[in-house]
């Protein structure tokens, strides 16, 4: 039986592939933990995950049921963050809102990263006019401000979370396509690609089995870095009334409804604002830390 010790993990001559892999992970985690800001980011993200997972348990009140007798109460022991214009507990709504935020972020990542990866690798692999057409299309999307483009799409598709996710995904894929294309170009003419072609592999197989796996790591890092932006765009759409619809406790929409009382009942708009700031800051810090750890060129010592 092997023992999970520090010495075993940092052994320069690992005996098994499992040990080498575990050691590599261990070193990466330690490098990440040495960066205090990345730890802060990680703690925020883990907190968000826990809150989202146990929302019904953690939330003291229902996020949707209104209680008109308790309208616009200031923060107190009963309502830590106060109540909104319909007497709903703001803390409970923020806790449930974590689920919506997380869902939007994950869905956008799951939709846009593969699309970008596919477009980028195909463009890089075939080159020529395929490249020009696909990259031209990518440039068209890149040249428009993200929020405004998403706004246009939601306006066309109709408001709602699903449509907001689709709209945000449409605005984020071009970045991944560019990265994947650049990455593909670096080993497009590598010998091992020629070798597999000489064996009669089809273009589809070369792209899916040999090129995409090699582009994956840089795309993943980029997705983590982009998550803060996705949260902000989602909140922006919610604020404009084009994202999640009431009574869903979406943070952006909550700020929007609190705007009317911002001078007298500041907490209604401020509390969800804090939530957005903290969570997107968490993704930013963690993404930065992750990039430093994964990119050996940035290692300074």
């Amino acid at each position, binding site marked *: 039986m092997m023992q999970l010790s520090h010495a075993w993990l940092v052994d320069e001559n690992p005996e098994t592939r499992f040990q080498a892999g575990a050691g590599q992970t261990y070193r990466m985690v330690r490098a990440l933990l040495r960066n205090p800001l990345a730890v802060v980011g990680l703690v925020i993200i883990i907190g968000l995950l826990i809150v989202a997972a146990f929302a019904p348990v953690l939330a003291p009140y229902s996020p949707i049921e209104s209680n008109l007798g308790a309208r616009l109460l200031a923060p107190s022991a009963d309502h830590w963050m106060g109540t909104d214009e319909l007497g709903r507990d703001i803390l409970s709504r923020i806790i449930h809102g974590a689920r919506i935020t997380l869902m939007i972020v994950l869905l956008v990542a799951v939709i846009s990263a593969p699309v970008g990866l596919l477009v980028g690798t195909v463009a890089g692999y075939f080159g020529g006019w395929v490249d020009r057409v696909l990259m031209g299309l990518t440039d068209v999307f890149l040249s428009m401000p993200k929020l405004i483009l998403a706004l246009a799409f939601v306006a066309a598709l109709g408001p709602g979370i699903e449509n907001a996710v689709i709209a945000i995904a449409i605005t984020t894929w071009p970045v991944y396509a560019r990265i994947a294309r650049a990455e593909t170009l670096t080993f497009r003419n*590598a010998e091992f690609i020629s070798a597999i072609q000489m*064996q009669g*592999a089809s273009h589809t197989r070369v792209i899916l089995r040999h090129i995409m796996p*090699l582009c994956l790591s840089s795309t993943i890092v980029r997705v983590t870095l982009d998550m803060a932006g996705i949260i902000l765009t989602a909140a922006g759409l919610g604020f404009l009334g084009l994202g999640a619809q009431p009574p869903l406790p979406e943070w952006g929409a909550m700020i929007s409804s609190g705007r009317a009382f911002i001078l007298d009942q500041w907490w209604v708009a401020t509390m969800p604002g804090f939530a957005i700031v903290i969570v997107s800051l968490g993704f930013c810090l963690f993404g930065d830390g992750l990039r430093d750890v994964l990119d050996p060129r940035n290692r300074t010592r």
Partner: protein
Amino acid sequence: MSLLTIENLRVSFPGEQGAIEVVKGISFELGRERLGIVGESGSGKSMTGRSILRLIEKPGKVTADRMEFDGLDLMTLSNKRMRALRGARMSMVMQDPKFSLNPVMRIGDQIAEVLSFHSTLNARERRKRVLESLEAVRITDPERVYKLYPHEVSGGMGQRIMIAMMVILEPDLMIADEPTSALDVSVQAQVLDIMDDLVTRTGMGLIIISHDLNMVARYCDRILVMFNGEIVESCQASELANARHPYTQGLLASMPTLDEHRDRLPVLDRTQLGGV
């Protein structure tokens, strides 16, 4: 009937002042024999090999009066039929195993991949075939090597793996483009012996592209010498010493031998050859 017939093969790339021809109308035939193509860098020997597999990258252009492989016209074959030929009936071993194996794929999976698109074997049968082919290239512990990544094997072993990958479907024609130039001298002989053994056993046609005259003379039946995109000499390997073309003679003369006392080795007189 010959396995491969090539007549007037030309490969050109567009340049600033019109097209530059790198292969200038060569013709040869290949039966089930071992043919060596030798020549200096830039003489067009690799381009000849690649154009047989139709793997010249754009904007390169290939033309030929006739290019037939076992009765199939390689010039007009559809891309799909061409893919079915590559790997299954003709294959190519490349120069450096370090670059010709996918760094992030296990060796066994990489070899098995050929089987997955050229055959209908299931996963277990594929694995068995891969292990057999690794054994055929004298890898003593195929089970272990199956699970390794390319960076974990030596150059010689990498090249043997490459050969295993290329012969697993027992092609009729194998093209080896400088198969040993990235290897140590001691490993070179080993790799060549394995290739030689496979060729004799399966009766495939082999084209070895190289700049090593001695090696080619030893392992091939027939030799073509290429210079500046043309075939300047074609002879039986045993007749190489009686070569007539000044380029071949020059090459032979500039090779040092162990039991000689020349102060200077002669250099090719290029003005006489009329080349570059």
